[in-house]
Structure formats: C-alpha cells, structure tokens
C-alpha cells in the first residue's frame, strides 16, 4: 500500500491568490492513500524542501505529489529533494496548479476546484509509479568532427588539447574549408591564410588528431557516448603515406585543363594536383574525370615521374568503422547558385562575378597573383559595382528568406581593399540595409565610406546589361528618388550563402533535425545553441546558421567544451523513462521497430517455458535503454500492448484520465 504525501505550494501569492491552498491541502488529507498533506509559502525554497524531506522520513512516504508550478520548472528540484530523503526520485509527481490553474483563472472557487482535480490526478498517477533507476552506458573517449573548415579545425584542436582523440573527416582533399579561399578577414584585415594555416598545421601535427581527408560519412549507428560510424575513404589514386608533396606530377601531367575549383574555376589545374600550396595533408589527388590514364588506360606519366612510387591507379574506395562518444557537425556552406537571377547577367558576362570569386582574384596565391584584373580581358577595372543581398532576404522563391549575415561586412572589406590598392578605381555599392552588428564592425564600414570614399547607394539593382563592352548597372537610388545607371567594368554579386548540401544526408544519418532552409536545428535557440536535439551531436559554424569567422570559432570552442564535458565522463546516466516490452505478451511482429526513430528496438529469440517441461523459442522485442528516448511511439503501435513506457505507462495515463473525468 502506497503512503502518499501531498505538498501544496502557495508560490507566494502566485498560487495562493486564486487557489485556496489551505483548503486543497485539507481536502487531500482524506484522499485514499494520502497519509500526509501540507501547504507552504515556497515549496521550492530551502525550507520548503526541508519540509518535504522531513515528511518523507517521518511518515515513511512511498510517493509524493507537489502541487506547485510547472514540472518543467521544478520537477528536478523536488526529485532531488526526495532522493536526498531516501525516496526514489521517480516517486515524485507534480500537479501544475500555477501555469495551468491559478495564473489563468480568476474565480477562486473555480480555480480551487480545478486545483483539487489536478492534485487528485497526480495522486492517481503517483500511486502507480514504480521506483526507477537511471541506467548507465559507457562513453567512448573519442570524438568525430565532420568537416575540416575553421569550425571543425577549432573544435578538433580544443578537444584534442583536453587530451581526447579526435578524427576530422573532410570530404575534400585538404582541410581548410572556405576560410582557406579568403584573402583578408574583416574587421582587422588579417590575411586569412596567415591565421588559418598555422591551425591546419597544428591539426596535422597533433598526436591526438587524425585527419581523414577526401573521406565521407557513410553510415552512423549507435547513440550518445557510443556512436559507430562508417567512413568512406575515397580513392585518391595516390598513396598518402608515400607522397611527399613535391608536385613533380603536377608539372608533368599532360591533362592540365581541369577547372581549378579552389580558385572558383577562374583558372585551370592538372588532373593530378594538390589543391593549394599549404594543403593539409600535402598530398596529391587525381581527378578521375580528368585523368587520361584512368579514363583511357593510356598515359601513366605521373607514375613514371613520381620518385617515391606513390601513384596507384588501382586504388579503390575503402571503408573504416570507428567508435565515437560525441560528434561535431561542421559541414559549412556554399554560395547559392545564381541561375534564378539572370537580371544580374552572371551567366552571360565574365565580368559579373561573385564575392568569393573576387576573394580569389585579390588573393596573392590566386589566379592573378593578387593583381585585380577582370576575367574577360585581363584589364584593370576602373569602375566596380557591388550588389548586396543577391538572393538573401528573398521570399519570392528564387533565393533564401534569411539574411546571409556576412555579406555587408565582406563587401565593405572588398570595397575598402580595392580603394586602398587602386585609388583611381571608382567603387559603388548598392545596398538595401547595411547590417554591421559586432565589435568594431560599424566603425569598419564607416571607414570604407568616410576614409576610402566608397559610394554607397541605397537601392537595389534592377538589371545588369552589356552595352558597347561596358556593364550597365541600372538601379534605384532611393535617397535621391532617382534611377541610376552606372557604367561599370566589373560587377560583384554578394550571393546568399546556403548550408553545404551534403548536410542533408548527414542529418538523416544522425537523426538530427534540419529546418526548411537546410540549416541544422539547435536544441534550444537561446540556451542550447550548440547542441543538436540528438544527444551527443553538436553543431559548429555555418551548418547551423549564417555566421562570420569569430562567431564560428566561438561556437566551435563551445562545441568542444560540450564534447569534453561529455567525454570526461566514464558512464552516462540514461533516462529511465524508456519503453520496455513484456516479453510474455510480445508477438515479435516488428511493428514497434518500424516506428522507432532511434533504432532502439531489436529482436531476440528467447526461450519460454510452456509448462510440462516443454519450451518454446519466440522472437521478442528488446529495447536498448541507452538508445530509447522515451517517446512512446512503439507503445501505441504494439497491438498486444506488450510495449509500455516507464513513467508514462498506459495504466498511469488511464488512471489520470479517470481522475480528471470523475465528477
């Protein structure tokens, strides 16, 4: 027989002003099973908790009901108090008489009556509660970072520095990501490569970091603390352990007409290549689409010249399976395709370029060695027009509804750098709004205007067209209420950014949720911004939303802190409110596994005694309590009712229903 204690909280006047708390406590004294009932001003206070603890001990309570605020607020508090008094924390139920009662009702009689029903409902439930113990699952002391851009690099370094093994899986042949393509960084104008490449080298040299470049995630199984991940190492046709990065192969390769993707296709590269000078690993890769040997079987020149015998045309994709305790997703972004924006003439005019292409054109290691020459004829452009918000803040369906966040600042940076380097150049910027929240950001933008004389035009461009070899940029100047046409030599489009498309597959594998724009969703927009709702999965950088480098680095370090916090634990406590099948009733029909989003249910053959010395082997469901998240989808799918959920059992819910309906 249960001995229930009831504790009614006043919450100052929050509850007591509308609910007659003393009367509620008094009524509860005569409820069957209730042996103690009290009320107090603040149950959550030190004294209130003391009252509960004392009552548990003095009255030998087997379960308690606290009539107070939402369980989302103080359930944990009261569970801890119960535990401290020697009562199983899961023998506590909360009747929400504040948010669901006193705060929304005005009439005292009505509110008190409802509070009585709510407390009775909680009593009905707690009577059927069973003591639960959180399970434990071991933690694999190794982290996986998906994506080797600045976010992935920072997260990996921080985790590794704390002493844990980290693998970086990067789909490209080198780590470095988008940041490696940038020229300078705002607002300090540091050279991007100068601050990034040392970190890349740190990764390569860190004894705890293993870089798996040119690799992709193939499959993910398991759960927080114990993920099992299959990684596809794509064939690069070069033995990573032998290649010294001497580049002789690049020199000798006869197939030199491949588009240099690192330079945004602005120049060409050989079929066998190292993406850029500071690549990590500094190992060549063969583009099989471009390699004559791989396509026709004839050639093999690179193999002949390779002094260390690193070239292997027979190389195949290989698969590695590794265990991880935590996963950081840092898959980054790409600029959107501009095919829906033919008004800007991007496809028709070589001299209409994107900002990322401009980064390469201005980079000393880029196709023009850092001299700003326009792509069509290699001339110095004299008039350059920037267009912001190309595809950002666009709800027409052509672009993205969100603000890409970084464009205002990098456009100011570009304009400033051009005016600095080529003072005779005229620079115009069409903008809708200039958004510069951030330390020293607005000052930076104002410098572009005030110090460097960049012409900011409030208005949007309607059309870019070619007339007599000039790019005519027609747009509105809203401040002067006029339509302007600027004869330009080069037009730079601040194309919206979007999450790297491969994130969709990764999100599916991780059962991590994704929003309508393909950004990964965080667990709580404000309070858990780096955690995915899937336990053990963390989000860093642009894959979670538009952000600049300092924000990305902060988020990556925050991820690392979360990961370290997880990996230092030897075991994880698991939520005890999980599904469990009654094996005696389970048909083994597999319906429950079909609806389990976590793959927590497997089937085992189990022997049952039938009586009379006979046995029978039956297929029955088995729930992994470390994986089960306790949603209950399986319980309703189960036709025999063999599957039930601890803490929210069918009987408990049914008795709550009865208590509410009883008049």
């Amino acid at each position: 027989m249960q001995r229930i204690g009831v504790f009614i909280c006043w919450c100052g006047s929050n509850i007591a002003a509308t609910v007659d708390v003393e009367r509620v406590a008094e009524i509860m004294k005569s409820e069957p099973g209730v042996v103690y009932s009290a009320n107090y001003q603040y149950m959550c206070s030190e004294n209130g908790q003391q009252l509960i603890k004392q009552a548990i001990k003095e009255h030998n309570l087997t379960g308690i009901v606290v009539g107070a605020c939402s369980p989302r607020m103080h359930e944990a508090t009261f569970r801890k108090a119960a535990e401290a008094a020697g009562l199983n924390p899961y023998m506590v139920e909360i009747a929400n008489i504040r948010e669901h009662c006193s705060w929304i009702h005005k009439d005292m009689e009505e509110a008190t009556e409802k509070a009585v029903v709510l407390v009775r409902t909680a009593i009905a439930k707690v009577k059927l509660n069973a003591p639960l113990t959180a399970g434990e699952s071991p933690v694999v002391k190794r982290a996986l970072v998906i994506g080797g851009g600045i976010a992935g690099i920072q997260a990996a370094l921080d985790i590794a520095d704390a002493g844990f093994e980290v693998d970086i899986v990067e789909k490209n042949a080198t780590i470095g990501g988008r940041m490696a393509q940038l020229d300078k960084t705002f607002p300090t104008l540091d050279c991007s490569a100068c601050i990034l490449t040392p970190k890349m080298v740190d990764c390569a040299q860190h004894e705890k970091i293993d870089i798996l470049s040119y690799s992709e995630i193939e499959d993910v199984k398991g759960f927080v603390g114990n993920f099992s991940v299959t990684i596809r190492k794509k064939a690069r046709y070069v033995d990573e352990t032998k290649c010294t990065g001497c580049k002789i192969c690049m020199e000798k390769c006869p197939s030199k007409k491949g588009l240099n993707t690192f330079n945004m296709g602005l120049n060409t590269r050989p079929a066998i290549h190292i993406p850029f000078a500071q690549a990590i690993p500094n190992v060549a890769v063969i583009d099989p689409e471009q390699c004559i040997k791989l396509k026709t079987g004839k050639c093999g020149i690179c193999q002949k010249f390779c002094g260390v015998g690193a070239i292997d045309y027979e190389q195949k994709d290989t698969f590695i399976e590794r265990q991880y305790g935590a996963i950081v997703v840092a898959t980054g972004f790409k600029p959107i395709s501009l095919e829906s924006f033919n008004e800007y003439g991007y496809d028709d005019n070589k001299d209409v370029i994107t900002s990322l292409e401009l980064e390469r054109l201005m980079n000393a290691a880029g196709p023009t060695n850092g001299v700003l020459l326009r792509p069509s004829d290699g001339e110095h452009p004299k008039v350059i027009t920037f267009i912001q918000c190309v595809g950002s803040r666009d709800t027409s369906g052509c672009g993205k509804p969100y603000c890409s966040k970084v464009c205002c600042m990098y456009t100011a940076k570009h304009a400033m750098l051009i005016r600095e380097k080529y003072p005779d150049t005229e620079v115009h910027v069409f903008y809708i709004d200039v958004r510069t929240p951030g330390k020293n950001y607005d000052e930076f933008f104002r410098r572009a205007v005030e110090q460097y004389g960049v012409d900011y035009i409030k208005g949007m461009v309607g059309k870019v067209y070619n007339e007599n070899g000039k790019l005519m940029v027609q747009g509105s100047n809203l401040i002067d209420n006029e339509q302007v046409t600027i004869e330009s030599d080069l037009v730079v489009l601040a194309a919206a950014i979007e999450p790297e498309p491969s994130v969709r597959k990764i999100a599916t594998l991780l059962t991590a949720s994704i929003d309508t724009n393909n950004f990964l969703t965080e667990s709580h927009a404000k309070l858990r911004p780096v955690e995915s709702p899937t336990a053990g999965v963390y989000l860093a950088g642009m894959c979670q939303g538009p952000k600049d480098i300092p924000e990305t680095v902060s988020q990556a370090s925050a991820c690392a802190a979360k990961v370290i916090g997880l990996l230092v634990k030897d075991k994880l406590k698991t939520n005890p409110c999980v599904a469990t099948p009654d094996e005696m009733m389970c048909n083994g029909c597999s319906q429950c596994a079909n609806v389990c989003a976590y793959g927590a249910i497997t089937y085992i053959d189990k022997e049952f005694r039938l009586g009379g010395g006979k046995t029978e082997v039956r297929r029955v469901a088995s729930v992994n309590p470390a994986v089960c998240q306790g949603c209950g989808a399986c319980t309703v799918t189960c036709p025999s009712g063999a599957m039930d959920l601890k803490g929210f059992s069918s009987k408990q819910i049914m008795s709550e229903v009865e208590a509410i309906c009883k008049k």
Partner: protein
Amino acid sequence: MKDVEMKMLERAKALLGSGEVARVIGWKKGEFYFDPVPASFESVEELSDFVYNGFCGANLSKYLIQMSKKEGKTAIFLKPCDSYSFNQLVKEHRIVRENIHVIAIECQGKLDIEKIKAQGVSAVTEVEEDGDTVKVSSLYGETTLNKEDILLVKCATCKSKTHQAKDEEIVLHEMPESKNNRFDEVEKLEAMTETERFAFWKLQLQKCIRCNACRNVCPACSCIKCVFDNPASGIAAKANDSEFEEKLFHIIRAFHVAGRCTDCGECSRVCPQNIPLHLLNRKFIKDIDGLYGEYQAGETAEGKTPLTSYTEGDKEPNDVVDGEAK
C-alpha cells in the same frame, strides 16, 4: 470442383507419402456436407477424411502460427484471399516461411449455407457448381440456385483472384475476376446522416454477445495475449457490460488490425450474430487508400504498413472525413 479436390488429395498424399512434409493443412469432412472443418493431416491414412468443396470458406493461414513451429515442413492449401493473410503473417514474423510449402488452390467463391437455407433448401447433401448457377442436392431433391444469391459475403465482394504466395499451384479452371465492389456498403453508410449511422451501428453492435469468435478467427488478431484479456491494458473486459463496452471492443479491435487487416472477411463469416464486422475493417482500408495511397495488406511479405509510415504532407486529422481532407 471435384477434379480440383482429387488433384489436391493426390498432391497431399504424395507430399506426406514421400516425407517431404510432416503435415498438410486442409479441410476434413464435418458432420454434414456443408460444414467441412480445418484440419491437419499427418499421414496418408488420415487423408481419407480430406475434403475440398464449395463450403471450404475458412482461411487456414492462422493455423500456421503454431504449425510452422513444429518439427518438419508443413504444407498448406491457400485460396487467393488466404494468401494475403499468409503474407501478412510472414511480414510480422509470425510464420517461419521456410518451414511452409504453400499450395495455391483454385477458388470459385465459397457458399453460405445460411443463404441456401433462406432460399428454402435444407439438408444439403451435395452441391455442383456450374458457372453462374449451382445445383444443390438435398435430402428432399435437387434445386438449381443462382450462385450470386448464395455466396458468402466475403466472396460476393471478392477483392482478388491472384495468389500472392505460392510454392505450387492447383488451378484447373479459370477463376472469374473480382468485381471491385467491396467498398459499396461502406459508401452507403458514409452517405447516411450521422444519426442514421449511429442508429445503424447501435443496432448491429447491440447484438454482440462478446463470444470473441471474430477475434479468434482473425489472422491479424493473433496476439499471444489480447489487450482485452490483459488487466494492465486498462481496457480488459470479458463481457459487454454496457453499450460503451460494445463499441469499445469493436473500435479497438478494428484499430488494432488497421493497416494489417487483409480483408479476408472471416470475422463476418463466423459471427453468430451476423454483425457485418467487415464493414468496420473496410472503412479503415478505404480511408487508408484515400489518405495515404492504395495499400493492400498482405500483397507482399515485407515493408511497412500505413500506420508505421508517414509523409510530411499527410492530411490533418481535424480535416479528414471519409478518406479525404474536407
């Protein structure tokens, strides 16, 4: 039909005689010509009672849940509609497929003895089917009846004459294609007013004596322990002690088999109170077809059911009426 029966018997003898199978599941003679009963034959001798005639309506597939666990292979005769239930049971891992030898047999639609009696013919001793008519012999002479008038409900609204699972086949005559009319009665009910529908079901379900025949015969209702027998479910009950209980039992039963019911029609066939139980299940089937795309349980032995799958654009419950979003 005689030739089909002969051929079936011949195969059963061969399979048992050679030891290829340990048992054959079929029908054996009952007390009368018109009440053959499902049976398991374990030797050639036992086959002397074997029968297959116009009254072999019973769906044998459910017996395999127990039989497939026994030592040795089990052969079973399955009519086209029974083969759907068979697949569904395989899908739900209730039958070990490798232990079964499926003999797909011809079916020209099975007869309802009650309907024959209603036509004024009793003490039936034999029937001979001939296309659209049936020659019925009884102790009192011979009568020719219109076949359509005396078919079982499930056969009058047959969904398919295609076997969905088979290891061999005994089909000697062409089987007429189904008429695609199984939702007609459901549609009639849907067209009624709410009050009329309520009255209809009240009248029907009032007849329920909670004998559990529908549950016991149903291949989808094959739980080791039914929720209605399990006190932990909160809805256990042995008898209909109120009007609510009558409804509860049939709503829950229909819901539990939704997406899994192959519409074999056994529930209505065995109901001693002649409650049109199949109209409950067919409602779910019709709604599923309308809302989530055509789905026939038991067409294959793998894949998810409509209730264990979803699409992001599914209709909202509040808008759904009769398989469409209104």
